[in-house]
């Protein structure tokens, strides 16, 4: 595609509809100077996009007399008009006295009128008399006068009849002035037409396409400036999930896909469900003010919904009840068990579930529970945190299943390469296990713990099948994945971090 100058483009585009225009016409149409048009036309001609012809053109225009006759009309016309006003007949004397014509004019007028056959001149009683019968139609010379009132006219544009009129006018002095001019014409060649079709040559450069450009069609005649790919742009901050919540969402999906049902329960909990029903003796260190948040007011909740269960749990603590255990051997206080606290472990939800009428056996349950512990909030401690835990219950569950569950979690959730089990301790399970998982690049991490609920826990709740309780330390897992080493970041107040954190 030949690169065209903007002048060339304009000329080509101007020629598109009529294909052949004079340079003057082009000037009018494009508003470019004659010199520029001439130059550009030559360039175009050298590329065979146009052909240029020269023609000598002859023009006629009105001379000074002609201008006068425009005002007054031809003299013979005025003469006949006078005669007709005098009832078609007048003497020469009257004419000279009354018409207002000058003498020379009268003779010329009479001469022309006679030639055109507009009047009869004869002698009557020794006087010259002129007679005219009717007004005569407009002659061709008069028509030419009219035509030339609008300016010069090309001689070749005159019809034969008008040419006759012109010749008549030419016999009078100063009516017609002839001139010659070299006219140049520019014609679009076929190749030129093809080129025009293809032109998207810039007439105007814009930086942005607008609805106006589209709708007006001007998009065809403007050039959209090339975009600078390195130009800096605004940052967009999209709506986004909080990364730690997203991580927990994914975790939930995984647990659900393994067949676990979500448990729900209150944040403010009865001490009974959080500790006592889990066989934690009432003076256990983990129940003290250093380890559990106590509600200031009211101090106590209502255990009436748990009636019989409370009695059985009390007996189990004191002497083992019917569980076959020796119990803790102290006096159990129901009042103490009704204390209100902030839930300190997710296992409270498991207790609620075991008590619930909707319990499925076999069943697999999970919860991601917000739990609370009095603690300072620093790089490695939080005072509120999430615990992921749950239970599995069924008639023939064994310790092997417990290990199987932990192993499955390590592989599915922590994507561990290896696992190792170690004995552990929880007041409410026996046997108890701790799982350590090994991951390439991360080393060994304690990932979770589990155990089989003690009979002192399950029997008072009316459960006679084995119940596996499990818990996972997923906060650490998240911190590893998100490459953070400050646990407070899980609840970060840093908008910049949230905005820039890639989705883990």
């Amino acid at each position, binding site marked *: 595609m030949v690169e065209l100058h903007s002048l060339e483009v304009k000329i080509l585009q101007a020629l598109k509809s009529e294909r052949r225009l004079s340079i003057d016409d082009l000037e009018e149409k494009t508003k470019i100077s004659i010199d520029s048009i001439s130059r550009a036309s030559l360039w175009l001609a050298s590329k065979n996009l146009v052909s240029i012809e020269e023609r000598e053109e002859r023009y006629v225009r009105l001379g000074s007399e002609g201008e006068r006759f425009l005002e007054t009309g031809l003299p013979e016309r005025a003469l006949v008009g006078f005669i007709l006003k005098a009832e078609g007949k007048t003497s020469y004397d009257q004419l000279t006295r009354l018409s207002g014509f000058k003498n020379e004019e009268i003779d010329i007028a009479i001469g022309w009128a006679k030639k055109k056959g507009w009047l009869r001149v004869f002698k009557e009683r020794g006087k010259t008399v002129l007679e005219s019968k009717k007004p005569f139609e407009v002659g061709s010379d008069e028509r030419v006068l009219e035509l030339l009132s609008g300016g010069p006219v090309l001689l070749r544009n005159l019809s034969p009849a008008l040419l006759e009129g012109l010749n008549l006018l030419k016999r009078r002095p100063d009516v017609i002035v002839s001139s010659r001019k070299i006219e140049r014409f520019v014609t679009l060649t076929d190749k030129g037409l093809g080129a025009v079709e293809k032109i998207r040559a810039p007439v105007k450069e814009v930086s942005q396409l607008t609805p106006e450009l589209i709708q007006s069609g001007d998009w065809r005649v403007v050039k959209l400036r090339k975009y600078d790919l390195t130009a800096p742009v605004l940052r967009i901050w*999209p*709506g986004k*999930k*909080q990364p730690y*919540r997203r991580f927990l969402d994914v975790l939930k999906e995984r*647990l*659900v*896909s393994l*067949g676990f*049902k979500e448990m*729900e329960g*209150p*944040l*403010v909990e*009865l001490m009974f469900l959080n500790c006592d029903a889990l066989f934690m003796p009432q*003076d256990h260190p983990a129940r003290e*003010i250093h380890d559990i*948040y*106590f*509600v*200031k*007011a009211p101090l106590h909740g209502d255990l*009436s919904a748990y009636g019989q269960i409370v009695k059985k749990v009390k007996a189990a603590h004191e002497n083992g009840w019917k569980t076959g*255990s*020796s*119990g803790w051997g102290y006096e159990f206080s129901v009042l103490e068990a009704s204390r*209100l606290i*902030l839930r300190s472990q997710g296992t409270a939800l498991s207790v609620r579930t075991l008590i619930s009428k909707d319990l499925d056996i*076999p069943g697999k349950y999970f919860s991601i529970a917000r739990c609370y512990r*009095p603690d*300072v909030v620093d790089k490695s401690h939080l*005072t*509120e945190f999430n615990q992921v835990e749950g239970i*599995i219950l*069924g008639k023939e569950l*064994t*310790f*092997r*299943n417990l*290990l*199987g569950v932990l192993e499955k979690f390590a592989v599915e959730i922590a994507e561990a390469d290896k696992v190792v*089990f*170690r*004995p*552990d*301790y929880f*007041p409410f399970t*026996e*046997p*108890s*296990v701790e799982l350590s998982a090994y991951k390439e690049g991360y080393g060994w991490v304690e990932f979770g713990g589990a155990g*089989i609920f*003690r*009979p*002192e826990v399950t029997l008072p709740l009316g459960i006679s099948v084995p119940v596996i309780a499990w818990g996972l330390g997923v906060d650490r897992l998240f911190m590893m994945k998100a490459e953070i080493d400050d646990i407070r970041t899980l609840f970060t*107040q*840093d*908008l*910049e971090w949230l*905005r820039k954190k890639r989705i883990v």
Partner: protein
Amino acid sequence: MPTIEASFGDLERLVGVKLPKEAGKLDDLLYYVKGQVESFEGEMLKVEIKDGNRPDLWNVEGIARCLRLAIGVEGGLRSYAIEDSSKIKVLVDSRLEKIRPYIACSILKNVKLDDDVIRGLMHLQDKLDQTYGRNRRRASIGLYNFDLIEPPLRYTVARPTEVSFVPLDAAEEMTLEEILRKHPKGLQYGGIIGKHRYLPILMDKKNRVLSFPPIINSNDLGKITENVENVLVEVTGTIFQNLLNTLTIVSLSLADRGGQIYSVEVDYPYGKEKRVITPKIESKLMVLRPSYVNEVLGLNLKTETVAELLKKAGYGIAGSRRDEITVIVPCSRIDIMHSVDIVEDVAIMFGYNSIKPEWPRLATVGSVSEREVFSNLVREVMVGLGFQEVLCFSMSTPQILFDMMNLERSPVIEVSNPRTLTYTCLRNWLMPSLMEFLGHNTHMEYPQKVFEVGECVVFDEKNETKSQEIRKLACLIVHSNSNFSEIKATLDSLFLNLGIEYRLEETDHRSFIDGRVAKVLIGNREAGIVGEIDPAVIQEWKLRNPIAGFEINLDILLQKAKF
């Protein structure tokens, strides 16, 4: 989870074989005592023991005891026996019944003490006092140089100013009252007995003070040094079984250091038994069925195998039939309450990592709660509307929830034992958390659009927990032109996408600009609030731009949402 300090050489000597020094291999051994190496510098080994109910493992002697069995240096029941009666009596005053009723003692003769042993002994005493003794309330330990004491002992009471003695490591005599008032131990533990008119005191025949239980020993009689050969161990407290267990642990630990155990007679004027001989280190018998072991563990162990593993764990076998083993539980195992405790030991000895894990074949269907599903939908819509999700703590302070939001204080769930002034209650609405969040980010580009879906808690008498959790959604939009139109448009879009019809009604709320706040109503229920935040509140949080937002009760929405 107690951490036990020991000299590596000492441990090796007690175990009787060379032990590996690499942390990994050492951990493999410590598997048997639920322990892990916490640090190992030079000779000093620190082991973390996971079991909060196995005081018998809380010293190097106890750990060694178990390792000897696990490695096979010895097997079966280690029997400890009382050498003889010491013929010593402890006479208890009746007034102690309401103050600190129980005491139990033992005497260990010919103990070989050195710095390490004494240090270990002190640490054991400390750990027992703190955890098992529940900060000395339930049980507290005293150790004395028996040779300096003249029996019988009197466990009696004295008035606070009546008696004085030189407390351990102090320079001069102090009365009981002074000790409670000025001495660090008095300040720390005084609450246990301080409110009584009479205070417990342990004295010998010559009215010399052995100690002021549970506060402190006397310096003269209660200082244990390397050249002490005969040790009197005393435990006082409120739960007798607990005392006996504590006494057992300490006595056995000294017995492992060569001491011979001598019993003491305690005479009580109250209680069921008036004459109690302590320590009680008889083993107890329990019946264990191998079928039960296999049922719990999912294994197929033969009776003989179970018996072998039991011996390896330190149990004795009194008799064995096809499905019945009479197990002798050593006196050190004060944690054994139910046969399931013994089953765990069998499993540990068999090797947790030798048991083949099996994923349980249960046909269960997983699900997320309906509330969660709905919350996630709401979160999805909010993200779609261009909001950044944040997660804030649910604990807050009344100052943040009310004062800084220009509201009168009303009751919220407060805790009686906050650890810091920053977290003293549970939030009852979300917006203050979001305002706090914005306050941390005034240097970040605007507009800022944030939201949170979270739990709030309010009082509710009807519920057993006297409270009710409410799941809420709150959002705030901040930028130089933030206004009601924008937030209303957001609310519209949210409800459109949830398929819920709502309407707004004028209301007053001091956190919002008067005339630019409305209640959100769904049917006839008030479900939330929307409006422009009052500039007084904006300034309170040191923010500089207009803020508009809303807070909605999602639990109410859930009931109305058409799925």
